[in-house]
């Protein structure tokens, strides 16, 4: 199959799909190697960029998806009314962050990090399919374990979980020495 024709197929696939399409899937459709489909995808993305199209192809949730340029949002909103999807609350974003890094994680573990009860927020995230129940933790009460979903990656435009920023290491030693000083201050 001609290379141009292969790129056309990829473009059409992305156009039709409402979900991210993996390069594995494309390789299957075109009966080519995965590396080849990745190469074609790179070229197609470059084509879109160089031609300054209104549509772009971007990596998300382990695949690729077609979407409009973020810069066009304002103009597009004049033509289309958006389905009202409420943004996540600060509490929801905090819980989301904890689940993303600590998964699989129980409700109690989430609440102990946040210092507040979070049942309602967890229920909301479950309803929005941004988190899911992945099983139960062994131990007393066998509490439910939560982890993130593919929808989570899509919602935040993440390629995969590795795409999240790295958590800083907390330096405990540094703190301990300071604290000794401070407790002396208080007692005097």
């Amino acid at each position, binding site marked *: 199959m001609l290379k141009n024709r292969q790129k056309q197929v990829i473009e059409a696939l992305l156009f039709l799909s409402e979900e991210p399409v993996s390069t594995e899937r494309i390789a299957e459709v075109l009966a080519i190697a995965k590396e080849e489909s990745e190469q074609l995808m790179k070229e197609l993305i470059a084509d879109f960029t160089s031609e300054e199209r209104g549509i772009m192809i971007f990596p998300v949730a382990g695949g690729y998806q077609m979407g409009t340029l973020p810069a066009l949002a304002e103009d597009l909103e004049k033509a289309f009314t958006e389905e009202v999807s409420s*943004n996540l609350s600060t509490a929801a974003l905090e819980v989301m962050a904890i689940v993303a890094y600590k998964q699989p994680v129980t409700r109690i573990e989430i609440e102990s990090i946040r210092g*507040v009860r979070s049942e309602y927020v967890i229920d909301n995230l479950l309803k929005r399919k941004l988190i899911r129940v992945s099983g139960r933790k062994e131990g007393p009460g066998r509490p439910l374990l939560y982890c993130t979903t593919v929808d989570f990656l899509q919602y935040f435009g993440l390629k995969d979980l590795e795409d999240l920023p790295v958590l800083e290491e907390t330096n*405990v030693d540094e703190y301990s020495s300071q604290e000794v000083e401070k407790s002396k201050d208080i007692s005097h």
Partner: protein
Amino acid sequence: MEIAEYKIKLPVFEGPFDLLFHLIKKAELDIWSVSIAEITAQYLDYLRAMEELNLDIASEFLVMAATLLRLKSKMLLPRTPLSNADEEEEELFEINTAEELFLRLEEYRQFKEIGHYLKEREQEQQKIYLRSTGGQKVMVLTRQESVYTIWEGAHHLSDIMNRFTEIARKEEYMPVFQAVEDFMLTDKTAYILDSLNRSKQVMPMRSFVRKEGLWEVIITFVALLEMARQRIVMLLQDSSFSTIYVTLLEVSPDKEKEIAEKQTKASN
């Protein structure tokens, strides 16, 4: 005379850690260089302000206040060699030393920051519009394993169960259930009742199955179970997996009327 209205704006906090974190930031201090005594005083000031404004103080905030006070008193008092284990029990925060408190605060701070980061990603992502067919899929990418199709070509319930457990065992499994067909159980119940009334005979369950397909069998079976529960019909079966026969139970005219009323109500 008009009552002067005081408008004091208190920031809303997600929880006690959020408030503590805010107090530390306000004092332009590093988490590790905060004195417990100072932070406790400020924390209690804030709670008092809330009280004056007649705001509900969530119990978590009070638990934290108690935790802070205990930490403070511990630092002031000489350490007793005998520690009472029962005393250390805490519900939401298991914080027994200042070090633990600051570690927990630091952990919270990190996730709060990640929350901010996610907020930015959310906003950025919401500027990208994706193709949508308004829920009506024009073309669905064929997947190798799909929960949508696990009942296709299945002849027995066990076929579906086997396929289901196979998929469910995989890690990436996420159940997605969609109603395949709209159906009305009441329609089925009415049909069964009507058929039995007309024939005045014992009828096999099969005779109520009007359409092809597993769903129809399921609906018929559920309808019969419900009718048996309500003592409208009796189900008879010789042995497991043999034909199920259905017969009307003796129904008094009053009862019959009641059922008929229920049916019309349900179908309205």
